[in-house]
């Protein structure tokens, strides 16, 4: 069902946990739908120096969060904001069709955390102008069940 990369990130998820006094925190999804992702960012000089996540969700949700954190760690804000769910899926070697929305959730969680950082610091992040932190991926995704 899952690729070796997915299983590797599921088996040994990278960057699990919380960051105290994080510079940005994003939470997306909801428990009713069976998936919540929370991402914590430590940002110095527009560089993501640390990132951690907590996820309530299926195997691919955990793997997507883990992969997303790996992909943005050490990157600049401008790079991180360009992270797409497709990049997560590709890095994982693919996801089953019904699980693609987990990767969308990971993308949204990163954006939400960056958005939170922008709000706190009063900065503007290019690419987040239209971001809606309350976006619910499930409203659009529950149909293919």
């Amino acid at each position, binding site marked *: 069902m899952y690729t070796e990369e997915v299983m590797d990130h*599921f*088996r040994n*998820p990278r960057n*699990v946990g919380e960051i105290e006094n994080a510079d940005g925190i994003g*939470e997306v999804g909801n*428990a*009713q*739908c*069976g*998936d*919540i*992702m*929370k991402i914590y960012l430590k940002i110095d000089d527009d560089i993501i120096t640390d990132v951690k996540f*907590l*996820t*309530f*969700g*299926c*195997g691919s*949700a*955990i793997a997507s969060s883990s992969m997303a954190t790996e992909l943005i760690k050490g990157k600049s804000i401008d790079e991180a904001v360009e992270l797409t769910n497709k990049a997560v899926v590709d890095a994982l070697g693919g996801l089953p069709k*019904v699980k693609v929305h987990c990767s969308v959730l990971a993308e949204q969680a990163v954006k939400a955390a960056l958005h939170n950082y922008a709000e706190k610091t009063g900065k503007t992040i290019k690419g987040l102008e239209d971001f809606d932190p309350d976006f619910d991926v499930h409203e659009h995704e*529950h149909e293919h*069940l």
Partner: protein
Amino acid sequence: MERRVYLDNAATTMVRPEVVETMNEYFTELYGNPSSIYDFGQKAKKALAGARETVAGLINADVDEIYFTGCGSESDNWAIKGVAEKYCSKGKHIITSKIEHHAILHTCEYLEKNGFEVTYLEVDEYGMVSLDDLNDAIREDTILISIMFANNEIGTIQPIKEIGAIAREKNIFFHTDAVQAFGHVPIDVEEMNIDMLSASAHKIHGPKGVGMLYIKKGIRPENLIHGGAQERKMRAGTENVPGIMGFAKAVEIAGETMEESIGKTTALRDRLMKLIPEKIENAKLNGHPTSRLPGNVNFSFEFIEGESLLLYLDMDGISASSGSACTSGALDPSHVLMAIGLPHEIAHGSLRLSLSDFNTEEDVDYTVEKLVNVVDRLRQMSPLYTG
């Protein structure tokens, strides 16, 4: 992987070696068509007659009331649609429950699109149908009541005899989906007032692809599979002699060992039901505490999600399920867990462990040990857990 502990016997079971042996003879030696006139085919016919007797014996039915089918789902479809089509002039109302298997529910939904009305009875927090609700739901035009014997997810056993008595008194046909109960707990169709009963071989260490429908004499549902004159003209298709012989062998063993097996699996079940909440906080038992299948254990663990749980358990060699096997891969929590009133987020974290004769106390203890770790690990990862 050091150890394999198979705890998904409600999904399907290992075929018993004795059953495989029985079938093998019919694959390559006695492969004749039972409808054929030559000795070679007649031997198969005789064997079939014996199998029918064995299966009938387990539920106190007559040999002429046993019809072999291709699976439990076919039996369910045949019972429901066959009665609906044949007796629709008497009425077009059917009563069933909210926690039936999809083979019943989707068949009923199909009938609703074709002019039938279906009442889906609610169940209580333990998954029990209420006899009062049933009585209230019965109408002038009710032609069929279909209530499952035991639920596949939470193991709850319904008051079948009482339901049957109500149906009989009101002159309504009573069908029960006994796919999970047949061969696991005693069933007596006479005593329990059952008119039709579905079963499936692969749930009792028989082969996949063989089902059975018991139809009480005098009831004649429309055929689901028309064609040749097999099964007394009620179910066409060359008889699956090896499969049916394997089914009968599995039934024979189930019958002989039932008492012992119930004792053994109940003890293992109760051990799981005791140890799990002892060692894991916020673990909620689903299903009825006592009126439940000897092999069924179902818990919800707060703050975590079922698929992750299954995958981590699988890494420890433990095969289990979350909700029914048919709905995994779907992302919605199961309709059964919803019907017993679980909130979504708790339903998502449910685990079904289903035991068989082949499980041991070591299996149970190993599972509990691993489960404790896995639940803890997932909770540490969960944004919902504040523990």
